């Protein structure tokens, strides 16, 4: 069978006795049997024996990759479905990736409140983020892998509010690399690169709660955020159509913190300075992975964020396909 032949080509090679080998030689025998002694106690028989070989050429058919979608590839989704496009901005380590990773992890454990997982064309992309996000929780160097990409990439997720709902809601979410955001706030060329976000349904700017909690970095991180928003408005990247949410991450570090006044430091100045220039300005507090689960639960604030993103569902049809995709995932029928 051709497909199992493919397994032999790409899988663990076998030696000419049919045993698993670490070399690259290919078995010349058509059939083989393993002796009982070849099994280790507790080894599962169903994991063995799929290595096969053939001299016949094998024609393979590509399937969708499951990785993040590039800006060109998102038409694979938007051609078929109304989709809500969301950009998550924020400087390095502010918690952008953690939001997406936690969302996918929550669905893996159970329906997320009223929301049910209806599928994703980018499950590998989600899995990568979950993996590196978990790794980062114990290794400070690990997060470079997940945030180094300079290109715009999107994760796709389809969700339903109830199983009987006819159509799923499709979200295309892009978390933009922190370095890009850092440069854009002081460089017109870099800000112009962000022109892509003008077609968004939502922009969520994440401010690192950990830096807000630290008195020495508080004003700097607030000023960075304000500078970015001001520059984005001046460069027409954000305008009176923009729905911007200021999302304070790691809220568990700020709740009840002496000397930290949320309204005074964040809500009031942002409202005063930017509300009139934007379509909507909202404020959210999240602690999706709190340091302790005693007070804050895993995913704290994520429901508010998700509900917020879904409020613009009625605008979804405004995203028109630019071109017809040729990929087989056009057949998607969520």
């Amino acid at each position, binding site marked *: *069978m*051709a*497909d199992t032949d*493919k*397994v032999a080509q*790409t*899988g663990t090679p076998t030696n000419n006795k*049919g045993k698993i080998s670490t070399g690259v030689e290919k078995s010349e025998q*058509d*059939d*083989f049997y*393993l002796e*009982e002694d070849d*099994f280790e106690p507790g080894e599962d*028989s*169903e*994991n*063995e*024996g*799929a290595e*096969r*070989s053939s001299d016949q050429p*094998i*024609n*393979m*058919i590509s*399937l969708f*990759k499951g990785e993040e979608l590039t800006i060109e590839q998102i038409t694979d989704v938007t051609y078929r479905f109304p989709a809500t496009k969301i950009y998550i901005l924020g400087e390095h380590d502010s918690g952008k990736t953690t939001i997406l990773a*936690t969302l996918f*992890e929550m669905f*893996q*454990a159970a*329906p997320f409140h009223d929301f*049910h*997982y*209806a*599928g994703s*064309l980018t*499950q*590998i992309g989600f*899995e*990568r983020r979950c*993996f590196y996000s*978990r790794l980062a*929780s*114990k*290794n400070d160097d*690990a997060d470079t*892998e997940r945030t180094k990409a300079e290109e715009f990439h999107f994760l796709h997720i*389809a969700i*339903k509010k109830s*199983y009987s709902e006819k159509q*799923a809601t499709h979200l295309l979410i892009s978390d933009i690399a922190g370095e890009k955001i850092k440069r854009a706030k002081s460089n017109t060329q870099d800000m112009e690169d962000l022109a892509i976000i003008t077609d968004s349904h939502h922009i969520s700017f994440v401010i690192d709660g950990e830096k807000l909690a630290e008195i020495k970095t508080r004003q700097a991180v607030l000023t960075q955020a304000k500078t970015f928003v001001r520059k984005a408005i001046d460069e027409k990247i954000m305008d009176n159509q923009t729905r911007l949410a200021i999302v304070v991450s790691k809220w568990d570090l700020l709740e009840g913190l002496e000397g930290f006044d949320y309204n005074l430091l964040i809500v009031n100045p942002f409202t005063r300075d930017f509300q009139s220039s934007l379509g909507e300005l909202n404020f959210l507090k999240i602690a999706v*992975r709190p340091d302790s*689960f005693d007070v804050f639960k*895993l995913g704290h604030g994520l429901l508010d964020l998700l509900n917020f993103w879904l409020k613009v569902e009625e605008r979804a049809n405004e995203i028109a396909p630019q071109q017809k995709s040729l990929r*087989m995932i*056009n*057949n998607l*029928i969520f």
Partner: protein
Amino acid sequence: MAEKNISIIGLPASGKTTYIAALWALMINNSPHCSLSLHSLKEGNQEYLNKISEDWLSFVEVGRTMLAKNVGEVIMNLKNNATGKITTLNIPDFYGELFDAHFQDREWSETYHEQIQNSKELILFVDPYAQNNIARTIMDERQYMEEFSGMEDILTGKTVGKKKKEKATPPPANPNVYKHVDTSNQVKLVEILQYLIYTFEPETPYKIALVVSKWDKVIINHKNATPEELVKSNLPLLYQFLSCNRQALDVKYFGISAQGVDYENAKAVTEFASTVPEDRVEVFDGTTLTKDIATPITWLSE
């Protein structure tokens, strides 16, 4: 000509082989409980089917004494005893590594494509207690970190001079790089089904008999559970996906105990050996308990 073409799919170690071994053994023996009977063996590796069914009948771990390299695709032609309808049971891969490879390589062969294209009825096997059904989340990670306090040092190779806890074990090789093997079973199973939906855009829903294997073990701890409830709790992402996509996936849940007994329990094996083989099997569809091993196939062929 067969009226239905049913494929058996599932990840490695999900219970497929044991089920097929028991099915073959009971077909050959014309089990009185069985709603189906063997019509003919069109092609495939009969030797392998015979061997695994002998293993099953002898209370030996199925497949342990023989691993054929070229088992290939196996086809069984089965006849419905009540209606006379012929159903083809197609087993693309006994071990499930094929489906793992599809997930990892993101491609499948033209041959497989043609086989699965003609199959609108599927039996999907899941092991309810597979260790990797649900991914480890950050909460698990915290717990893990508490237990393995030396993890940071192990990850960075700075274990010299540090005293590790007695229970600590080193993490897997190359722990800093994501590999497909790190993906949970339920994500892989969703992907297998998404492949089908996206690739073939069926005009009518796929009919899927989702079989929870090892049902005898399940009911020890969950006496009144149904197979659907177990999938809902043990493979929640898969359950949500199936429930959200009913227009494309018509699912019925079955719990099957095909092995019937723990082979390491000598006393229980002796007790079972004194009974007829067909009494070893139990199939539960959520309401009815039966000894008809072909129940999912019969439902799919309706």
